[in-house]
């Protein structure tokens, strides 16, 4: 198993004082894979990345890079390309020299000649599409250009693994989208094992082959974007990925008691009787005009790719969010105050585990704002 994976993490744990940054983390990343470490701040995602790079040392566990015990090696010997969140460019060097740095500091017997360095750097700059900026200084570049320089600099040493810490965190939304697409294309061309850290679920789901969802220093779920979004394994992943309605309910005989809504498809492997929570994506909430219906439309937002509605259930239950495509909405033309019936196309049920702290509604709205 370990032989086939580019990065093999086993039982890694790390504490900072009394704060547990990582506990018992196991992870395998295959060669050539593009993997996202996704989680809220404080989930340990950056710590894990820094441990892989050798910028941080775990308290326990083992780490193999291409089947080689990496914990025996310092950061300099690991041949890791690391792109820092704030680029960490050398501001007294031109773009060319920044990219050439990794080649210039090589031991003399391995160091390429000056002409060779120049041509390699120029090729890299062309690769990241800033071939004309070689003589500029970092202070003369935009954020997106700096990010490209940082990437070219990391690639110059022909790293075994490329690690990126919040690579698009400091860029504005438009540049971020462009760079994201471009990074995906670049990865497909280079086929380099790449791990990036992000707190932006959209970024992770759009860019990565596989997404590793981290929370409170543990891995909550690993899977393809479809798997983690479509079949979250636990409430944490559900809360963190995408927008979701959480409906508190009682579970009886493995079924939730939700008198005001019809549930078409129930997911979740058998919740225990007692208090539980039903997770329903807004696009799985189906509304139908019904004068005797149990809910009232409170808000209709038609701006954006889908129509967003807020529905208040009359029997004291929560406000539900629903989404529908514009063409479906056109058939109903709901307005605030309309009475409707509610149907859940799909819903997932989890028992409330005593002591398990769910994200607060404030966190929920934050995570949904990102989508």
């Amino acid at each position, binding site marked *: 198993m370990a032989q086939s994976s580019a990065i093999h993490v086993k039982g890694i744990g790390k504490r900072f004082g009394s704060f547990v940054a990582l506990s018992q983390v196991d992870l395998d990343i295959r060669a050539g894979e593009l993997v996202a470490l996704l989680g809220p701040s404080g989930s340990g995602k950056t710590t894990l990345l820094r441990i892989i790079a050798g910028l941080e040392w775990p308290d326990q566990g083992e780490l193999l890079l291409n089947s080689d015990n990496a914990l025996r090696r310092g*950061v300099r010997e690991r041949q890791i390309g*690391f792109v820092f969140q704030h680029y960490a460019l*050398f501001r007294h060097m031109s773009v060319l*020299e920044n990219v050439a740095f990794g080649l210039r500091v090589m031991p003399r017997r391995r160091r390429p000649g000056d002409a060779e360095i120049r041509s390699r750097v120029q090729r890299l700059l062309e690769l990241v599409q800033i071939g004309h900026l070689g003589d500029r200084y970092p202070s003369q570049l935009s954020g997106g250009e700096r990010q490209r320089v940082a990437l070219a600099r990391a690639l110059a040493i022909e790293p075994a693994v490329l690690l990126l810490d919040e690579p698009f965190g400091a860029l504005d939304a438009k540049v971020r989208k462009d760079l994201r697409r471009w990074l995906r294309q670049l990865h497909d061309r280079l086929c380099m094992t790449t791990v990036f850290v992000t707190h932006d679920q959209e970024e992770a789901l759009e860019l990565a082959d596989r997404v590793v969802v981290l929370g409170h220093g543990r891995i909550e779920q690993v899977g393809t974007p479809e798997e983690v979004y479509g079949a979250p394994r636990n409430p944490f992943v559900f809360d963190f990925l995408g927008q979701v309605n959480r409906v508190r309910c009682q579970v009886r005989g493995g079924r939730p008691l939700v008198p005001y809504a019809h549930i078409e498809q129930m997911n979740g492997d058998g919740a225990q009787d007692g208090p539980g929570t039903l997770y329903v994506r807004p696009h799985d909430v189906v509304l139908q005009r019904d004068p005797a219906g149990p809910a009232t439309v409170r808000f209709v937002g038609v701006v954006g790719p889908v129509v967003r509605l807020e529905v208040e259930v009359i029997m004291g239950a929560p406000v539900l969010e629903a989404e529908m495509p514009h063409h479906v909405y056109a058939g109903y033309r709901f307005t605030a105050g309309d009475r409707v019936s509610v149907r859940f196309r799909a819903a997932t049920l989890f028992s409330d585990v005593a002591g398990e702290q769910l994200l607060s509604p404030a966190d929920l709205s934050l995570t949904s704002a990102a989508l």
Partner: protein
Amino acid sequence: MSSSALLDRPAGRGHDQQRRAAARVETLDLTQASPPTSADASPPCLADARPKAAWRPRSIIPGFGLTLGLTLAWLGLIVMLPLVALFARAASVDPGRFIETVTSERVLAALQLSFGAALAAALANAVFGTLLAWVLVRYRFPGRRLVDSLVDVPFALPTAVAGISLTALYAENGWLGAPLAELGIKVAFTPLGVFVALVFVSLPFVVRSIEPVLQDLSPEIEEAAACLGASRWQTIWRVIVPTLFPALATGFALAFARAVGEYGSVIFIAGNLPGISEIAPLLIVIKLEEYAYGEATAVAAVMLLLSFVLLLAINLLQRWSRSHLERR
């Protein structure tokens, strides 16, 4: 026409010029394309918005004229006037006499000691001051704040006090002087003593110039260098020192300037043997006490000139390092 005048302000950097030229062409095209009525209406409004002088930047902050005037008046009164008076007085000295004075063996020896010891002290502080600043910024240890405030003591201590305590310490029967004397090293009453006193008084300048830059230097920079395979040594020489260099040059210049002008602490420890441990500022005082005002101003004028040239050189070096360091 008016719009091109507006754009005609001096362009900052070379590569900006092209862009601006392009922008200018666009703007001109636009004005040509616009209907004549609006073009006729715009000049008075543009004329109002135009700055009064071409070199004067437009700013929403008022009071530029007033503050600049006050600044220049203050600078003239406090700095320029005494300097002019010095040169006027020096110019009234007979040229032959002037040359004879400043080329006399005693004066040359004093100037050499003053500038040599000041440069040596500034250099020593550039090394150890940087180290001190590094320790203060990078590490957290008990007593750090105490050490931090100790750095400022040479600023605050009357220099005579410093001189007397240094003399007591380094004299042949002092705490440090006695063991050093056994090794055959004499500090007090020698040029070495001058150096020690100058190091003492100029230390804070280097530390305080470098500290803020070090604080801004993010650890990520060093981590990036390490990831790229640089050794600690390569990181220090290729990344940290070049980044610090402008601040280091500033600290060096300040320390040097302070050391050249230092008088109080040196005269106690130097012993003031003419030609051996007599510094130039003391020589000026001695000349004054002998009522040889012409000779005193001659020495002073030479000191001033030398200091000016050295500070200018450091400044140019600093500017060069800011823009051309990558070619090293």
